[in-house]
Structure formats: structure tokens, C-alpha cells
């Protein structure tokens, strides 16, 4: 039974249940890498070009952590899943970046995921994946249906406000923590950013847990139903070109529209992230027009938890002052 390694980075946080369920259904063993730690980061930093952003470096680290334990590395080439926006160019060239970085890697499965007019995007991809492991059409179809069901459940859990780690544990039956996860607290923050930066506690400096510890609630972009995001897509004069960036931009517009649900927006951005250069300024301007507090946290391989914590505390203090009416954003004394 071949073993396929799925690195715990990038699109893992969005599509892991789909891939895992499908591969296991067609009789392939799946092994995902362990949570990011210092060693993985160091491995990644060594192998990646200096100019790449930290999520890409982390991915290289995860691939290296897996390389001796698996027969294949699963690294699909995510091009486009809605036919309109692409993924970041680094996603497009990712399998090649990894493949040519070292010569001792196991074979990389780099099938393309691209929406074309006639074909359903994931079935087309999973069909070819199934054929790669010599599964027949019947097996593939059954595996596809089960995988799709798991993925839908996962998205539903994310929409109710669970974070990927808990949601994955619930899917696997390891946790039955269905207690209320979004109690209404004194302060509620929207933490926006790409799932691979926001949900990786190692690179985001435990941002989500720290916000919880300070007694504030967190909403992320995965908790907004797709249909509401689509509605927001008509607001921008020109949508961005990248899938995840669009989701972040639309969800920020959604939060700005429903101002009462949140008190401030935090944008988590990786150092040197290309799409974020545009996205961050866009969010900043929109938040400014909406008179909403806005904080950018930029992360890289040198950022420590303490630095992030200090900025977070200052931001939260400002929000608390504002709530108690000591001063407001317009600068007028009350």
C-alpha cells in the first residue's frame, strides 16, 4: 500500500478532508506532517530562495520532514477553482519550486486543479489522481462522493466557527467538543488572512489563542457563508486576481457592512507577500472609510510571539478605551 505524504501547509487548511478521504477510500495510506515547529521552519529556510514568503518556506520544511517516511509527496498544482481568479503565482509554480530544490525527494504528485467550462473541477482532478493509483471508475466515484461529503461537513464546521484543528478532530471523531464556541464577549475581532498563516500557531505567534486569552472573541473568514461573500464580490470596482486574496477582501467588506458584529479587524500578512501588498492597502483604505479600527500583523521567520503580543495588547487597549468612550476614532473628545 503506497504512502502519500500531505504537508501541513498552504491549502492543507482548506482541502485536507477532501484529499484524505479520497485517498484512503481508494486504498492509499495518508500521512500528514506534524505541526510546524522550529526544526521544520529551519529546514525550510535553508532550502527555499530567500525572497519567498514564510508560508512557502514552511511548506518546504514540511516536505523535507516527510521525505523519508512516504512514497509520494502530494502537492497538487492549484491553478483556479472558480474559473475566474487564480491562486498566487507561487502556488502555480510550487511543485516545480519544490522539485528542483533538492535531488533526494520522493516523486511529487503535481496534478493540476483548474476549473474548465465543462468539467467539475474536483472530480476531474480526483479522477486523474485515482487513475494514477490504478483505481477503477466505480471506486473513484464512490471515493469522490464520500470525500465531497467529508469536505462539506468540514466547511459547515468552519462556518459554525470552529477552527481547522478542532474541525478536523471532530471529523475524525476524536473530539466531541460541540459546546458553544462563539459566546458573545465584550470584544469581538475579525482576524483576516490566508488560512495557512492564520491557523498555523507557530508562524502566527499563537495569535488566535492569545486573543482568546485576552477575553475577546474571534471571527475568521471561513465563518462567513459563501453566499454572503459572493454578494460582496460586486462591491469592488476591480476584484483581485487571487482566490484567497479575494476571499479576504470580500470578508472584510462583509464585516465592515455588519459593523456591530465586530469591534476591529486584524490582518495577518506574511513578509514579502506579493498579493498582500495590494490587499493590505485595499483593506486599510476600506477600514478607514468604514471608520473601523484596523491592525496589520506582518509575520516572518524572525517574528517572535512577544512582539506580536505587544502589538495585540496595544490594539486591544485602544479598542477598550474606544468602547468606554474615552476617545473615538475621529479624534474628537467626547
Amino acid at each position: 500500500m503506497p504512502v502519500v505524504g500531505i504537508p501541513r501547509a498552504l491549502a492543507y487548511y482548506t482541502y485536507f478532508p477532501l484529499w484524505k478521504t479520497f485517498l484512503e477510500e481508494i486504498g492509499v495510506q495518508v500521512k500528514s506532517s506534524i505541526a510546524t515547529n522550529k526544526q521544520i521552519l529551519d529546514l525550510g529556510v535553508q532550502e527555499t530562495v530567500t525572497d519567498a514568503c514564510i508560508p512557502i518556506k514552511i511548506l518546504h520544511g514540511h516536505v523535507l520532514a516527510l521525505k523519508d517516511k512516504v512514497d509520494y509527496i502530494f502537492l497538487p498544482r492549484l491553478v483556479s477553482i472558480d474559473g475566474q481568479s487564480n491562486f498566487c503565482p507561487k502556488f502555480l509554480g510550487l511543485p516545480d519550486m519544490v522539485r528542483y530544490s533538492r535531488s533526494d525527494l520522493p516523486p511529487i504528485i503535481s496534478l493540476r486543479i483548474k476549473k474548465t467550462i465543462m468539467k467539475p473541477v474536483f472530480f476531474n482532478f480526483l479522477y486523474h489522481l485515482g487513475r494514477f493509483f490504478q483505481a477503477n471508475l466505480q471506486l473513484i466515484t464512490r471515493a469522490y462522493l464520500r470525500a465531497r461529503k467529508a469536505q462539506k461537513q468540514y466547511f459547515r464546521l468552519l462556518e459554525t466557527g470552529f477552527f481547522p484543528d478542532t474541525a478536523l478532530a471532530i471529523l475524525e471523531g476524536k473530539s466531541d467538543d460541540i459546546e458553544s464556541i462563539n459566546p458573545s464577549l465584550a470584544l469581538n475581532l475579525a482576524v483576516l488572512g490566508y488560512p495557512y498563516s492564520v491557523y498555523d500557531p507557530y508562524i502566527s505567534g499563537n495569535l488566535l489563542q492569545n486573543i482568546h486569552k485576552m477575553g475577546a472573541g474571534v471571527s475568521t473568514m471561513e465563518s462567513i457563508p459563501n453566499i454572503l461573500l459572493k454578494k460582496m464580490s460586486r462591491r469592488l470596482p476591480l476584484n483581485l486576481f487571487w482566490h484567497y486574496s479575494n476571499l479576504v477582501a470580500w470578508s472584510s467588506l462583509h464585516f465592515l457592512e455588519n459593523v456591530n458584529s465586530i469591534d476591529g479587524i486584524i490582518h495577518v500578512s506574511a513578509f514579502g507577500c506579493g498579493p498582500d501588498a495590494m490587499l493590505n492597502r485595499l483593506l486599510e483604505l476600506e477600514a478607514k472609510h468604514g471608520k473601523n479600527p484596523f491592525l496589520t500583523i506582518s509575520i516572518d521567520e524572525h517574528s517572535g510571539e512577544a512582539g506580536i503580543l505587544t502589538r495585540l495588547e496595544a490594539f486591544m487597549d485602544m479598542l477598550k478605551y474606544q468602547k468606554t468612550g474615552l476617545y473615538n476614532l475621529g479624534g474628537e473628545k467626547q
Partner: protein
Amino acid sequence: MGIKKITFAHMGTSALAFKMLFQDLGYEVINPPVPDKHILSLGVKYSPEFACIPFKIVLGSYLKIIENNPHVIVSAGGFGPCRAGYYGEMHRRILNELGYNPDFIFFWPPLKKPLNFFKKIYQLKDKTSFISAMIALKRAWKKLKALDQIEILSHKIRAREKNHGMTTYAFHRGLTYLDEARTTSSIREAREAAVEELRKVPVDNQRSVLNIGIVGEIYVQLEPAANFHIEELLGNMTAVPHRTIFLTNFARKSPFSHDSKAKKIAKPFLPEMVGGHGQQSVGDVVSFSQQGYDGVIQLAPFTCIPEIVAKSLMPYLSKRMNIPVLTLFIDEQTGQAGVETRVEAFIDMIQQRQKD
């Protein structure tokens, strides 16, 4: 309302051709300033931190020009996955935020939105008739071609010149001839005069020169102020630079055919179009090595995503194709001396390599 004032961003020698085009269309052209320290720092001040240097230089130029109250700013747009397509929209937002509201006309790739392309031409040509607009366009194209021709010639001559600086002087004389030329026949005469001027530069034909390919992102390739005049630098070190992008071949190839030769060559290494010139950079390195060039310099602005993808393939390609590759990522912190030192070391290394 009187004559409308129009402006655009400076990009290499092409500014001369665009200036003529817009004057023919009946606009008053505000000359785009040649990028310098002041413009760059203006741009850096108002740009997002991780925007690439073309974004910052262009925004800085707009902010400098805006004192002259232009009515229209012409720029190019795109559809990704490279960020440059979004730059026009972002520039507009930032200028609006600062309280300026000039009209922006963005040109999208004509093949993707043909109707939009003609609509923009219609909007731009204003009161000029469609036929004379087309004639003006054709004339501007002729001028662009002439500009590129003398530039290529100057690269070849500079590496062999006997007296340092003669070629650059002759090249700038040639540019002034072309700038003054207004009709098709005078453009031809000016081109011949410019070529003549360059041919008069005394050269040493015995000198052995290196052939260096230049690949990478379009703006830093085309704008000498952004790449620290790397072509002159190479010429002075007796190397002939061979740039892969000229505006004329770019306009001919890229908007109309999506599959140029370089992309085909790049397929075995990088099968996906990663936006910008990432895939071409990979293909160009392969084809330069097949044509027996001595080395390749990859030029890219810092945080340019497509070129980062290309860069991560360079160590492998360089080894596999047996060709030295130097990657220069340029940002506002890059200094002239730093670039000179690295290029010098690179050229020395190639010369040593050939002796062994």
C-alpha cells in the same frame, strides 16, 4: 475646455514615441520625469511596503507630475496572476485618497477584452478622426521600432568602443534626432542619422567580448533608472547585453499570442504560466545556453512573485544547462555600488571560467 493635458509613466526610450502619439492625438503632453531619487522616495512614502519597485517609481512619477494638473493618465492593466494588472487601480485609489482625481485610462490586453480595447481607443482619441488616430498609432510604432533598433546597435558598439563614453554620447545624440522627427519620412531619416552617428564611434574589432543575456521582469529591464543602467555597465566591462524584452517585440508577441517560443522551451521545467515573465525567464535561460551565450543576468524587483518562482529554478537550470546565472533583486535599498560590484564579480568569474 482647452487642450487636455495628458501624461504617462516613463519607461526607457519609449517615452519619446508615446509623447509623439499623444501630441498627434491633440493633447498637451506633460513630459514624464525620468525616475530619480526624489521620485522614488515620493513613491516609497505612499506605496504599500511590499509593492515592487515599478509600482513605487510609477506612483512617485504620478505624484511629481500631479502638480501640473494632468487631466488624463494613461496606463496598462492586466488580469493577473501578476500583480501589475492591479497597479493602475491601486494607483487610482491612492491618488484619490490624497485628494487628486485625474482620469485614468487603462489598456487591457486587447485579446482578452477586444471591445474594451476599442472603447478605450475611442475614449482616448477624443475629437481626432479614427483614421488619423490609426495613422498616428502607426507612426508611433515606427518610432518605437527605430528607438529599439538604435538601442540594440548601441549595445553592440559599446562593448568594443575605443574611447570610454563615446557610444553613450552618440546614442543620446541619436535620441534627440528621433525626438525631433515628426513624420514617417523624417523618422526614417532620423533613424539613419542616428545609426550613422553610432557607426562613427571608433571601435576595436579585435577585442573579444562576452555575450550576456538579460532576462526578467519588463519594467526593470526597460527602465535604465530602475536597473542602474546595467546595459551601460556591462558595455563598459566589454560585454554585450542581449535583452529579451523590447517594447516592440513585447507588444507584438505578448498581447496577441499567448504562447511564445520561450514559454514552449520552459515547459519541461515550469509547465504553468506563473504570470509576468516568470515562465519566459526560465525559457530564455535555456535558449541562451543553447545559443552558446556566456552568462545570464536575471533582473527582478524585490517581492516580484513570478520571478521568485523562476529564481528558485535557477540553481538547477544553471547546473543542468551549464551557464552562469546572476540574479539581481532590486528594491529601494539597492545601491549603485552594490550592483556594480556584483556584476563585476560575475563578469570576472565568466572570464576566468573561459580561461580554464
